[in-house]
């Protein structure tokens, strides 16, 4: 049964009950694919920083180091 299909249409095309409980495709196909290595602060670098300061420090400056550490194996 397609995910967009209303429940009221369930069973109309003869699908078994298991279709209600099962994903539309095998779960292995839905798993995240390994991504090419990229710096984890990439988003901060790509975007114009917001006009937000905390204690007079630009927000992006406060976030840069923690973002870089997101990608480290220790995290």
């Amino acid at each position, binding site marked *: 049964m397609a995910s967009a299909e209303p429940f009221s249409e369930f069973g109309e095309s003869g699908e078994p009950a298991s279709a209600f409980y099962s994903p539309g495709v095998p779960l292995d196909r*839905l798993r995240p694919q390994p991504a090419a290595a990229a710096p984890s602060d990439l*988003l901060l670098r790509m975007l114009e920083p*917001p006009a937000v300061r905390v204690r007079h420090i630009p927000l992006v400056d406060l976030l840069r180091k923690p973002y870089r550490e*997101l990608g480290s194996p220790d995290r």
Partner: protein
Amino acid sequence: MLVVHGGWYGGRLALWGEDVSQDRSPASRGRAASSGAAPGRHPFAASAAALAAALGAGGSGATGEVPGGEGIGGRGVLGEPGTEGSGGLVATVAAVAARAEAAEATIRLPGSASRPLPSPESGLTGSVRGPRISTWAVPVLLLRPDAALALLEALPQPGEEDSGTAPGPQEAPGDGGGTSGDEPGASGDAEEASWEPGLSLRYLAVVAEHARSLARRGRILPQLVEEDGDHAARWRPVLIGADAVAFRDLAAAMPPVCRALPGERPAAEVLEEAMEGLVDGAAREALPERLIVGNRPGRKTALADRWLHALTAPDASLPGARPAEAAALGDALRGWSAAAHELDGPVRAWFRLVEPAGEDDPWKVEFGLAPAVTAGRTDDAGGGGAGGSGSGDADEPDHLTAARIRAGERASWLPERPWEVLRAELARAVRLHPDLHGALRDPEPAVMEVDTARAFSFLRGGAPALAAAGYVVRLPEWAGRQGLGLKLTVRATEGRERAGLSDRVDFRLEAAVGGHTIGEEELSRLAGLRVPLARVGGRWVELDDRQLKAALEVVGRRGGGETTLGEMIREIAAGGEGELPLVAVDADGPLGDLLSGEADRRLTPVPTPRALRGTLRPYQGRGLSWLSFLSGLGLGGVLADDMGLGKTVSALSLLLSERERAAGDAEEAPGPTLLVCPMSLIGNWRKEAARFAPSLRVYVHHGGSRRRDDELPAAVRDADLVITTYGTALRDLGALAALRWERVICDEAQAIKNSAARQSRAVRAIPARTRLALTGTPVENRLSELWSIMEFCNPGLLGPARRFRERYQEPIETRRDEDAVAALRRATGPFVLRRLKTDRSIITDLPEKQEMKVWCTLTPEQAELYTAVVNDMMGRIGGSAGIERRGNVLAAMTKLKQICNHPAHLLRDGSRLAGRSGKLARLEELAGEILAEGDSALVFTQYAEFGALLRPYLAARLDRPVLWLHGGLSRSRREELVERFQRGDEPTLFLLSLKAAGTGLNLTAASHVIHVDRWWNPAVEDQATDRAFRIGQTRNVQVRKFICVDTLEERIDEMIERKRSLAESVVGTGEDWISELSTDQLRELFRLGPGAVS
């Protein structure tokens, strides 16, 4: 046993369960809500307390029965974790479940007015003509995102087991987890299987994987959101590029049951809510420390300060925020997030780095545009022209360079004002790679000339960042490939009849790029270059300063000399030294044979053992030579031939061969081999050993009657082959590890693919002179599985897991690095022999149709039922005559065959299927292996009701399509199924009723046929087999017939084999001939032998 399902509601993971033991239809009936009425109770839903208890959270504090209403009802906090179980999944789940709140929710499910249809994982039966959707009340446990993350991450993958701690259904029946209590006398560490995750929960675990991946890659931004009338600081995902595609795929594939709580909801809405909650949880977990030091902000502190603090605090809420301040902060952050999503435009900039045409020419970076569907990857420059299909139209170019756009070329995806788009894209790209700034001076930027230093900067810094940001980046084919490494040359000093690890060899170690060796002088020159990009041996190479220094040091320290063969094998397996990978090996002698990739062909042939009752096929003989060679060196190996190629007979031949070589010399006589296998294979090993190697003394160490204490060493001493299960090896580790073993063999070695699992650690802890792993799938999902299996075979040889991950796993899994693939093949090649049934040389060795018997054992429950039916039916048969007797005999046979299939087949009580039938366990394993190899299979049963039980169960367990063709289907539906199967879109299991599908159909998409129960009429079985083995079949077909050991199935099979010609004439009418046997003959035929149960 509970099947636990998951949904997402109110910002939390909602768990609810089906209690399989509660469902005894038709008694277990409820009444769904009629319009406007309060919903009825789900008749076999687990109470909140039972759910909490099953998950290990105790449950004393659960409120359980809270009156239902719309959505989520009343709540109560559960008690502290229960004491049962410790470590691993059990401990994680128990700790998480203890943080859950109990409540009651409404859910929409298909079924009748009195009973919802059960999930396929429950194994319960139920069918309704024209099911309707009704509302039911179910008790739920609600978990906050942080706890939900922990639970979802701890779920085992399908087929994975963490013996003793994982939920039972991952265990083979009665093995390890004791799901069927197969060993009444076993010590008390066999845990009762109490729950298993349903597919909806497994689906949410995949969503959690995505959430963690987004957080790890920094694809998140902090936001100020409104929650329950207040403000809160939350991390939100940024879904652009491939992540947006993944989100759409996840929403499209969501199991409907996930969006049925507390009523029907759109999948995207449920997924968005779940993803947001899980991303916030994952980000907080990854960022446990405060983002700014100093005083903790109070209520009067500026909102931005409080907000920043709340992003990493346990409490995300920001009560009492001033509206104007909240609006300003919220607007700024929302604008930031919106800008991130604007990056996901339909057309992206395209970049290509072009190397200099001549020595004095510059490098170039070319620009262009490409449709977003091809964006987000680096690629080699190959071709560089139009090609591929960005927009799905084969005639459409997948990119246009600026030069081609200027020349007037167009594509449907190209925007009206391409130069504006390109300049806007370049302006954003400058933020990632400032060197591109110069290109913006040109109103129509097409190309930028750069020197070698800037080319290197683009290669190393710009390209990966731009590609990760969704731009299309093309690099020369050598980019990112291995640069400098080591070449090892090994020469045998003296020819020897039998090689040994201590043999002396000469070696030489040189720096190399690919196959080109570099002398010390050239190394020094390269180390002095200003820019680490140089032409070496006719190709451009990215050099690394650390590698150059390391190469100078290594070559200077140990350029060559003499060492042992064993040391060289270790060196090759290690794959290099420090920063320098081993990029080439040139060896002769035994090492050359091992590394050649054709070791089995080049090694001295070992004669087929005289004691083998059978003939080895040519490739099996070569496999024996390889096994003997490695064993002689004291090395372990992985025999990873495709299923059906005879790994069992190869291993038995090795045992016979080494005994014949010792031939009466007590000093040389090898000690016993310990074979560890899934419980479902014990019967098969025992039968195959008896058939092919009857001279081997076999002791099966399994079950309640197995030898203990002082008896065990004596039993092992008197055996050549000791067969045990992974579960028993874990339980009896102390006793088994105290004995001397010639060899430990792990069959179906994917069982030890998780190196941290207790059973993997257990088999590694049993000392042996040498080890062997047998598996058809050495790598199912991750390369770490190969490391785990190799670590069993040759402990320490591949180095620690972390080094393996850095050197091989990450480059291969994330970049598909071909050099790393080659290096891994070189490192593991000597120890892995894998032949595929599609190899040309193997095909010629194999018959076109290969028939095998699969020996299965009964679970104790099956055996008990079997004995009871035999006693009852023999009484009836003895007291009847004529037609009545004949009817009783046939009824007895039918019942016994049903029991051999599954207790639920006989009882028809809709009870669960998992863990109660040896045959089903074997079918599940085999089917999994067939599908993993990319093949499809036909599975015949003569019982339509058994097929109906199997279909949903196997579909859920294998996570693959399972078709079911039986006599109750219309002709058009049958044709539809056959057509779908023959289309071969993906590996599929096709269950067929022998009667409905035994003739006429053309099912050549299958290369495997399984007869799960027997008709005992060879002609009927052959006709069914010929659905796959017929004109149009291009592959060899493997046919397997399931037989339960020491039951009527084995005895009738023996009778047919003994008198095949007679049988073909006598049994040609089916099974009627059995009713003509005398009562004594029938008693002997039906008798349950001692080998039936394991």
